[in-house]
């Protein structure tokens, strides 16, 4: 508990991860997210529920596999198995920039203070920090750098085109 930041604030995580789906009776109530394989195999069953749905992707999953489902999803969870493994940065940008996803994009795994600035620029708006990270200190990460050169999810144009 207490390692979750959403929209630059400490927040309560309302979502529950869920795996091991067998039939519709085994589904819990409330907002759940499931791994991509379960989403693909039990899409209709999951959509029959009355609460919000999310999908978690491995960083090797092709995000285009869920592009047509994004309107029905409220959360996509992306993983950083190691801090140095930056594949999910690209996944987040594709979800936002290419497929127009408007829901929550959450970073999980080896998520530390020092990546948050880059993550938010790529479209992440929620973060499960690695345990032991100083949460309040980490909030500074969003504002300690204010100058950005290149376009990303938060800026359509590079710095040289912003004031012309």
């Amino acid at each position, binding site marked *: 508990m207490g390692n979750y930041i959403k929209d630059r604030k400490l927040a309560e995580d309302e979502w529950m991860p869920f795996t091991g789906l067998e039939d519709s009776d085994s589904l819990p109530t409330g907002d759940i997210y499931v791994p991509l394989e379960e989403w693909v195999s039990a899409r209709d069953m999951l959509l029959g529920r009355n609460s919000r749905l999310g999908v978690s992707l491995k960083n090797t999953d092709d995000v285009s596999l869920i592009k047509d489902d994004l309107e029905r999803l409220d959360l996509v969870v992306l993983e950083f198995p190691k*801090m*140095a*493994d*930056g*594949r999910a*940065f*690209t996944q987040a*940008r594709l979800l936002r920039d*290419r497929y127009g996803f408007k829901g929550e994009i959450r970073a999980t795994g080896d998520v*530390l203070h*020092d*990546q948050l*600035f*880059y*993550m938010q*620029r*790529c479209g992440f708006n929620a973060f499960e920090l690695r345990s032991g990270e100083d949460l309040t200190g980490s909030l500074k990460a969003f504002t*300690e*750098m*204010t*100058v*950005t*050169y*290149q*376009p*990303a999810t938060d*800026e*359509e*144009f*590079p*710095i*040289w*085109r912003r004031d*012309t």
Partner: protein
Amino acid sequence: MYQYSEQDHQLLLERVEQFRGQVQRRLKGQLSEDEFKQQRLRNGLYLQLHAYMLRVAIPYGLLSAEQMRTLAHIARKYDKGYGHFSTRQNIQYNWPQLEDVPDILDDLAAVEMHAIQTSGNCIRNTTSDPLAGVARDELEDPRPYCELIRQWSTFHPEFNFLPRKFKIAVSGAVHDRAAVAVHDIGLRLVSNAEDETGFEIYVGGGLGRTPMIGKLIRDFLPKEDMLTYLEAILRVYNQLGRRDNLYKARIKILVHETGEDKFRELVEEEWQKIKATGLYLREQDIDRIKTFFIDPEYDDLPDSDLEFENQLLGNPEFARWADKNLELHKQSGYRVVYLSLKSAHQPPGDVTADQMDAIADLADKYSLSQIRTTHRQNLVLSDVKVKDLYGLWLELKDLDLATPNYNHMTDIISCPGLDFCALATARSIPISQEITNRFDDYDFVNDLGDLSINISGCINACGHHHVANIGILGVNKKGTEVYQLTLGGSAREDASIGKIIGPAFEADQIVDAVSDVLTVYLDKREDPEEAFLTTYRRIGQGPFKEKLYG
């Protein structure tokens, strides 16, 4: 040169503050060395054998005299009075104290310099032709494009945690002085049939354990598409580059394993989707950056100067230097001057603080207050009037910066090796010094002509031995330092990877082995005009093998 905007300054100051916080957390023990490593490695700070090493970026190798003075000040105040110019046109300090590093970064920021992205698995400092803007064989000045790449790549949020480090080089001339073929991405300005300028794009070159020449994946890319195309390449690499094995993580392995054609397809497919985004370069975007690199007001001078001619005739030592260390300039009456950092008295690329200050003064006095660094670890004064050459030479001689050996055998590239580096398995600086001392006869070196010798102290190949005509690789074999010899490499437009000639040599035999190689060349060359590489390519390894091992 490029002048920082207010925002460029602000970015540096914010970065220094951020890093100062990280250093404080480390010094107070709130960050372990392992956790701190992730942070310092994004800011050019390595832990070496004896101390921290700080690598400072010199974007595309261009320095003002004022910046050079700051580099001297840092060497004097925070280091042991010298710095080391690297093969990536940067400078490295071998002895800073951790607690001083934020102050060093403050001093650098005051002159628009930094250590951002000089290490770590991100896009590194973009390198270029040290003769950019003054070369006679230049199609277009590459520096505006380098600057655009610098801005695009600095803190790029998507590409700061790549599978491995990523190096980009840009050349705008017929002759490749930027080694574009051995970079992760190499860009060469070319013109097409309609006489428009654009880029040839090479991907997947590199040295290290698995040396490869870059593959031409696009033969003409309009300039306006440069950044969207780079973004597409990086995006493909970030998704598909290998992360399971450090030694297979560079883009060269991805290109190799995917296949050139398939890789090209992947890039083109991604590029089609992003080519019309905000990264597309409008003509005015390019023109605005070009205004920072317009030609200075050159004096209208004849190309020959009677006094200079007489100085050449009257002073053989000056004539030798002029013959070796000058290059023609696009402007009549001017010359490009190479300052050799390869004297017998200092390790290749090392410059003392006093020399740096003096070089800054010489730049002010003779060369429009600018200095360039080269990937062969020398310096350049790019705009010297012919009539000033003699005076400049006298001063360079006093500074031990006038060794007449540019692009000759004693102009050796050497990594720091086991004397400094935590990765090295053998010493490299002592070997380079032994070669320089053994072959100190000007006439002999001159007669050998255009010839490169590069030395690496381990298989990571920071000394670029793979692309030397004669490459030396130090390895550790059962506790003894031994040296492998490779022949036939080139880092120029005819780029090639040298081949190992045979079993390695002991430290006390390697210079004799080099001498044997030279003997074979002198014996076999068709005439004194035939360069070593040409002879080697003509006759192959056989005669060299026979002499060395027969």
